[in-house]
């Protein structure tokens, strides 16, 4: 089941990458980053079944960091929305030339 899980993890990671690059809604881009984190977690768990429990502990830490990142990232999105009245990344063009 190791190789199947790694293939599934790769597919989910690619879908997440596609979502980040294709969508313009900042919240959905953020959601796709969570999908990528989850894909990597899946490959950690798949390896941990064969190589020991450390992989699962690493996934535990990744989940905590993902929770912290979601809280701060959504706060930034709220703060940007107050300024531009939009979450569409096309409107955030202050650093664009």
């Amino acid at each position, binding site marked *: 089941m190791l190789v199947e899980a*790694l293939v599934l993890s790769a597919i989910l990671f690619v879908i997440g990458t596609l979502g980040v690059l294709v*969508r313009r809604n900042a919240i959905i881009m953020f959601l796709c980053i969570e999908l990528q984190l989850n894909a990597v977690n899946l490959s950690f768990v798949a390896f941990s*079944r064969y190589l020991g429990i450390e992989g699962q502990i690493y996934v*535990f830490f990744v*989940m905590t*960091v993902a929770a*912290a990142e979601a809280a701060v990232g959504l*706060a930034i999105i709220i703060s940007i929305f107050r300024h531009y009245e939009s979450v569409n990344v096309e409107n955030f063009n202050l650093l664009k030339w």
Partner: protein
Amino acid sequence: MADILFFIFAAMAIGGGFGVVLQKNPVGSLLFMVGTLASVAGIYVLLDAHFLAAIQVMVYAGAIMVLFLFVIMLLNLGHDYRDDIKSGLGLFAAFAVTGAIAGLLARQLRGAGDNPLLAHFPGPEGMEQLLAEQGAIGAIARPLFTDYVVAFELTGILLLVALVGAVAIAKRRV
């Protein structure tokens, strides 16, 4: 049986992933994401990571997704059905980058099943024995509170900093 369940969960996870990317309404995307996370939790159970499956459902599908839903509600984006997928050069560049990453991953994974390193892997018996001896929570708690206790405490500090930072950033007037 486990293999059939694995493929059912895998199909649900991939379908949910495409739903997240293709759904126009953010709330719809979020619900597809919850489905994907729940399917991945099912796969964790099949891979003997019972504790992680539980916290995947409670923390990820429960808490983090509800946080996203709160933000969508707060910003009143739930009625947004406009198409926001990029077009033209942006879409082409996105597919080019995604294709390159997919190609690299496919190249790495092709022939992974008969990699000679796999013969040196201990196999799932060691993990099953560990789970039988210490239980699903004991097996992960023992190293977490002994070998990795510093990292664990630092994660606690990180969560506190994130909490204070989120409140400070989202506050109306700084």
